[in-house]
C-alpha cells in the first residue's frame, strides 16, 4: 500500500468528523476559503452594529434601550471571537480590518439597508438574527476547530437577540393601527433582504461544492434558506402580518413553504457597493479606524514605557 498523501490524510480527518486545528497541515485552498468566510462573518458582526446602534439613543423606553445596548455589545463580542478564530489562520486583525475598508473583504449585504423606524429594530432582531441563527447553528459543526468553538459561543447568545426582536414586533403588531402598520412596513422591507442573507442560489454559488466537501459549510445556501422560511412563516402568521410575496404557499405534500423568485439583481447590486447604505457603513468604519489610531499608538507607547521601567528597577 502506498503512503497516503497529506491531502488524503486531511480529508480523512474531515470525513471522520474530527476537527482541523490551527497547527495541523491544511491545503492552501482550505485556509484561504476559511479566511474569506470567517473574516466576512466577523465583519458582518461589526458592521451589523451600525444600523442598530442608530436607535440606541432613541429607544422608546429604558428597558428597550438597555436590551438593545446589550445586544449590540454582544455583536461586538461575536466579531471579536471570529477575528481571533481568523487570526489562527495567519491573517492579522489589522490587515483584515484594512481589507474591510478598502472593500477587498465583504460583509453581509443585509447591513446596507437603513433602519428608518423603531419597528426595524424589531424586524432585525427577529428576521436578521433569526436568519443568522439558522446559518450559525449549522456552522457549529464546521470542520475548523476555532471556528466551530466560536459558533457554539455565539449561538448561546443569539437566542436573546431574536427573542427581543420578536417581542418588539409582537407589541407593535398587537398595538394601535399605526403601530401595526409600522411593523408590517418593516417586515415588507426586511423580508427579501433576509432571504438573500443565505447567499446566491446553489446553482450559482461559486464556493459551495468545495466548502461542503471540506465541511466548512454543512448545508447549502438553499437548504438553509428553506429552513428559515419554514420556521418563520408561522411566526408571521402569529403576528397577523403578511410577507410581501404573492407566490408564497404551503406545499401540503412536502410540508415546505414555497416562495417566489428572489431579486438577485438587487442582491448583486448591494454586494457590489450600490446598496442604500454601503458608503455610509464603510465611512463609519474608516472614521473609527482613523480616529482610533492615536489611541492604539499611545497605549502601545505607554506599555513599552512600563516594561522599560520594570526592567530598570529589576536591574
Amino acid at each position, binding site marked *: 500500500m502506498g503512503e497516503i498523501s497529506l491531502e488524503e490524510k486531511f480529508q480523512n480527518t474531515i470525513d471522520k468528523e474530527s476537527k482541523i486545528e490551527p497547527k495541523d497541515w491544511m491545503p492552501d485552498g482550505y485556509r484561504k476559503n476559511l479566511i474569506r468566510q470567517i473574516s466576512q462573518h466577523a465583519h458582518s458582526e461589526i458592521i451589523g452594529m451600525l444600523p442598530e446602534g442608530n436607535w440606541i439613543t432613541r429607544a422608546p423606553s429604558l428597558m428597550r434601550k438597555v436590551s438593545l445596548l446589550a445586544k449590540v455589545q454582544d455583536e461586538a*463580542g461575536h466579531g471579536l471571537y471570529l477575528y481571533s478564530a481568523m487570526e489562527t489562520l495567519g491573517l492579522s486583525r489589522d490587515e483584515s480590518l484594512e481589507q474591510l475598508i478598502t472593500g477587498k473583504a465583504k460583509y453581509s449585504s443585509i447591513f446596507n439597508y437603513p433602519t428608518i423606524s423603531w419597528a426595524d429594530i424589531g424586524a432585525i432582531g427577529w428576521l436578521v438574527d433569526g436568519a443568522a441563527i439558522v446559518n450559525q447553528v449549522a456552522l457549529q459543526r464546521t470542520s475548523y476547530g476555532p471556528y466551530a468553538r*466560536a459558533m457554539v459561543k455565539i449561538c448561546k447568545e443569539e437566542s436573546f437577540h431574536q427573542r427581543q426582536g420578536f417581542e418588539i414586533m409582537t407589541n407593535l403588531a398587537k398595538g394601535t393601527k399605526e403601530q401595526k402598520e409600522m411593523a408590517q412596513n418593516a417586515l415588507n422591507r426586511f423580508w427579501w433582504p433576509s432571504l438573500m442573507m443565505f447567499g446566491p442560489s446553489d446553482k450559482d454559488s461559486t464556493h459551495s461544492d468545495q466548502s461542503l466537501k471540506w465541511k466548512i459549510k454543512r448545508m447549502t445556501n438553499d437548504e438553509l434558506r428553506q429552513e428559515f422560511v419554514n420556521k418563520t412563516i408561522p411566526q408571521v402568521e402569529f403576528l397577523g402580518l403578511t410577507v410581501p410575496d404573492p407566490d408564497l404557499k404551503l406545499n401540503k405534500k412536502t410540508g415546505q413553504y414555497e416562495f417566489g423568485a428572489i431579486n438577485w439583481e438587487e442582491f448583486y447590486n448591494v454586494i457590489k457597493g450600490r446598496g442604500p447604505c454601503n458608503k455610509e457603513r464603510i465611512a463609519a468604519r474608516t472614521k473609527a479606524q482613523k480616529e482610533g489610531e492615536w489611541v492604539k499608538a499611545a*497605549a*502601545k507607547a505607554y506599555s513599552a514605557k512600563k516594561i522599560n521601567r520594570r526592567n530598570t528597577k529589576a536591574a
Partner: protein
Amino acid sequence: MSTNNEWPLWEVFLRTKKGLNHKHVGSIHAADEEMAIENARDVYTRRNEGISIWVVESSHIHASSPSEQESLFDAANDKVYRHPTFYNIPDEVGHI
C-alpha cells in the same frame, strides 16, 4: 493606514467557578496585561462565564507540534497495564 500599532495577542483562560481549573476560551488584543484582563472581561464574561481570568501573551506559549503526535502520544497505546480494566479481580470480591 499603518498596521504597526497593532497590540499584541493574548490567550484568555477562565475559571468558571471555584473548584474548577482555568480553561482556554479564545484570545484578544491588548497593549498590556492590565488592559488584557479588562478586555477579556468584556469579551468573554458578559454572562457570568467566569470568576477568575488568566491572560498569557500568545508569543509566550510553546506548543507541541502535530507532526510529533505519534512519537509523543502513541507510546502510551501499548501500555494497557496502566488501566484498571487490565487486571482480573474474581467476581466474588465485588467492586475494587
